[in-house]
């Protein structure tokens, strides 16, 4: 026998070792610390190569920038490494379940990305002559037709850039309609459980915002609403299903009462995922509703944006829709109605809300998604979304308090409160404990109407196995919070960062890198 010449003698006993010691790099194996580009880059490094610019007589009018700008550069390889390392410090849908209520964090199909990047879409200038962009206008038109059909509404405004922007669009249309009637009104009614953008948008439009109370069953109090309606109320903003995850059973009655009082119904469409393909908001009397393409229609969240918030409109509000509008003529050609022809076709439009035409990159993605699912698939989306949420509700309502759990099923999201947690333990502790278990926390402290609210929306793209594992993890963390496990107070223990000092960040805002570090500045 020849004895082992390399000297490498594997033995499992050796793997016990004496215990971990801190590393000199601060790295922990695959979890790598990464400095700022300002700390590793320099003004003379670059990751691009340009030909030299030919010498010309400058036409910059003496405004040449002489001072250093302070922008570091890195080689391509260092750039790739920098951002790859940063990316690994993020949780993402591609990694795991995101139980965020009202966010609809569903899988973002990669076909969408491929389609959006086709040069015929991506490399297109918005102001090119209409003859050169017929395919792009066709996409906007086709998506608009799908959204109108799915919602049962007469018209659609495609240009709003996000949900809040869509809310603004809807309220501006309502305001214009009332002005056209010579009936400017001053008040908008908003449930206390509404997303913050609702009252913020109404206040911006010059309305006084008043709360609509909820019943003990977590829904809009119809009687209270009817009592409050009057000639000073311009609109009611309703989310349906609402932010407690419940369908507003009285929606049609609410809409009828609102219309009888001469006002309009704005519906926040953030929760459309629960009813798409099964219920049409138009049948419920809605006058305007924004649709978050980055929620129901799978366009990616991208770490906070971009979104897209087209708004479907009723017959009554259609004339006031913003510019531009995409139209198809009898010959099948597409037109873009901008300011110049608005006088003829859209004389009552309230105007333009944004430069150019809207979030084309999100339109191509959403259309690819809609075509992939089709009418049958979209209906299944709502059904699976609702089933998954109810499965979560019933798998957890013995360990966590579900304030509306006993009155019936939820829709696409399940709501729990902090009732029953040990003294001194809160929803925040459960959230941070869940991080260690490998999950992004659920939506916390929203809606405001439930104490210590925990709102969980799994979406339809989670498998049963994924739900079961999430349930197991949350059961464990909830049990620890009810038993008063002190270790939970220090969570998260295993994330790239422990709990961060948000008080310091707000007291001494440091919003830009400077040579001096925060620690030095604090001295």
């Amino acid at each position, binding site marked *: 026998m020849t004895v082992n010449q390399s000297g490498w003698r594997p033995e499992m006993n050796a793997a016990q070792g004496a215990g971990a010691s801190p590393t000199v790099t601060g790295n922990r194996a695959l979890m790598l610390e990464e400095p*700022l580009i300002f700390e590793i*880059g320099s*003004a003379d*490094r670059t990751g691009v190569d340009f030909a030299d*610019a030919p010498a010309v007589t400058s*036409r910059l*009018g003496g405004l*040449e920038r002489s001072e250093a700008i302070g922008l570091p550069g890195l080689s391509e390889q260092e750039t790739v490494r920098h951002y790859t390392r940063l*990316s*690994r410090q*993020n*949780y993402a*849908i591609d990694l795991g379940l995101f139980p965020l209520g009202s966010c609809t964090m569903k899988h973002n199909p990669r*076909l969408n990305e491929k389609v959006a990047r086709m040069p015929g*879409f*991506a*490399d297109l*200038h918005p*102001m090119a002559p209409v003859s050169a962009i017929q*395919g792009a206008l066709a996409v906007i038109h086709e998506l608009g037709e799908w959204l109108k059909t*799915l919602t049962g509404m007469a018209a659609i405004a495609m240009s709003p850039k*996000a949900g*809040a922007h869509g809310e603004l669009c809807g309220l501006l249309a309502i305001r214009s309609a009332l002005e056209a009637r010579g009936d400017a009104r001053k008040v908008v009614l908003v449930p206390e459980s509404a997303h*913050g953008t609702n009252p*913020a948008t109404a206040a*911006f439009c010059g309305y006084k*915002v008043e709360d609509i109370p909820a019943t003990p069953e977590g829904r809009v109090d119809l009687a209270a609403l009817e009592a409050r309606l009057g000639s000073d109320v311009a609109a009611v903003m309703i989310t349906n299903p609402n932010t407690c995850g419940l369908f507003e059973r009285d929606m049609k009655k609410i809409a009828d009462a609102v219309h009888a009082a001469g006002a309009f119904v704005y519906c926040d469409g953030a929760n459309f995922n629960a*009813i798409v*393909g099964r219920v049409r908001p138009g*049948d419920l009397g809605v006058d305007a509703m924004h649709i978050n393409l980055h929620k129901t229609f799978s366009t990616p969240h*991208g*770490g*906070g*944006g971009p979104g897209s918030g087209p708004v479907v409109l009723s017959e009554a509000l259609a004339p006031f829709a913003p510019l531009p509008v995409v139209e198809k003529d009898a010959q099948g050609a597409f037109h873009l109605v901008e300011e110049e022809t608005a006088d003829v076709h859209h004389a009552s439009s*309230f105007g333009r*809300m944004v*430069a*150019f*035409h*809207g979030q084309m990159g999100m339109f191509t993605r959403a259309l690819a998604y809609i075509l992939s699912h*089709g*009418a049958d*698939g979209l*209906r*299944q989306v709502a059904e699976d979304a609702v*089933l*998954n949420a*109810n*499965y979560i509700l019933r798998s957890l309502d013995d360990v966590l308090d579900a304030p509306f759990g006993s009155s019936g099923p939820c829709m696409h999201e399940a709501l729990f409160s902090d009732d029953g947690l040990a003294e001194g333990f809160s929803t925040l502790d459960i959230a941070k404990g869940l991080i260690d278990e490998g999950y992004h926390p659920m939506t916390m402290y929203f809606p405001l109407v439930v104490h210590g609210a925990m709102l969980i929306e799994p979406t339809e793209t*989670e498998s*049963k196995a994924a739900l079961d594992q999430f349930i197991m993890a949350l059961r464990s963390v909830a049990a620890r919070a009810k038993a008063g496990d002190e270790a939970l107070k220090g969570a998260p223990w295993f994330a*790239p960062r*422990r709990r*961060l000092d*948000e008080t*310091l*960040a707000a007291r001494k805002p440091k*919003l*830009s890198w400077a040579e001096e570090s*925060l620690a030095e500045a604090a001295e």
Partner: protein
Amino acid sequence: MRYLPLTDADRRTMLDKVGAASIDDLFVDVPAEAQLAGQIEGLPNHASEMAVERHMAALARQNMAAGDVPFFLGAGAYRHHVPASVDHLIQRGEFLTAYTPYQPEIAQGTLQMLFEFQTQVARLFGCDVANASMYDGSTACWEAVAMAARITKRKGVVLSGALHPHYAQVVRTMAKVTDYRIAGALPAMQPAPDNAGLTARIDGETSCVVVQYPDILGRLPDLAEIAEAAHAKGALLVVVNTEPVALGAIKAPGEFGADIVVGEGQSIGVGLQFGGPYLGLFGCKQKYVRQMPGRLCGETVDAEGKRGFVLTLSTREQHIRREKATSNICTNSGLCALAFSIHMTLLGEKGLRDLAMLNHAQAVKAAEKLSTLPGVRLLNDSFFNEFTLILEKDARDVTRTLADRNILAGVSLGRLYPGEGTLSGGLVVAVTETTSDEDIDALRAGLKEVLA
């Protein structure tokens, strides 16, 4: 169906668990008359990836992609070469499919990137601070006007005539629900921006003066003069920049004392995308930071003393302040901000300056070649990578004719200011590092034919 992981067996098991006989039991709260009995009629059923791709590719083919033809369109959206790494990095799932960084412990990737982005924007603009992005330049412009009104408590808004007309329209639309008085104008067709005309419109009721730099005709206004005039009357100077590459060659707005600087960041990293998603940039002086709309990322430390980043000064925003928020904005343009930041990092200061000089040099060459054509006159004294030609024919007709000949000649003033006869000969031509000498020759030849 490929995006629905539940099997029929799963559904049965889960329905049992929740005590429902069928899925319809879970929709019991929806009144029967509101529920559709079956799937919506008139819409097709699900389709394979291949079928969807084919359908979308057919629509894409009906468009004239900028890279396929001589291309000279600008007017607020510019075509630049984006390095290959940018798109690969933004498609990493941990960036693409991440959420807003409200749970900072597991979002340091997004947060550190935003901190770097904010710093890059602030330095590019010459501002003290910048936010974590807005929807686009036009809505950022409106937000700047609203912010100036909040700070000065005045109602008058003076818009330069050479501000992008879409931006001016957005300001007018939004202002309808306020009591602001918006005073705009048409661009003066002079070789230099009409500073005298602009400053004459500023008075003691003006909250802000909004100036675009470079302007819609590509000219470079003297911001020092405007800043002085505005500040003398107690008004703020808002500068709008729709081509950030220009700031690699010309002085930053902050150097002139601009109070708020907003812009469109699309040029860097984002691409043309037929108008969206784009990237709103927003910077201002330190003393105004609490009046700034949008998300802000700040530095802090964690429980072990390690440096980290969090969203901060959140009490300005809608999810806390509700009716009293500085803006209703929630979503930003995060992934586009990432693309911008990566591209900027790859460029670095030297790269940005080189890129800017390439743009300017190519534009100077193009202006020289085109203005020697009979029937063509160059308007601008100064420009960066965009200038205005005055044609002896209707420029809009010219762009349509040339498009039919596969040349995208520029944006006509007739398209930007429909019905304004005095502007109808104006053609705004953008030239970048992606514009070749052959492209310029093709445009020249095309114009020569059409103007003959």
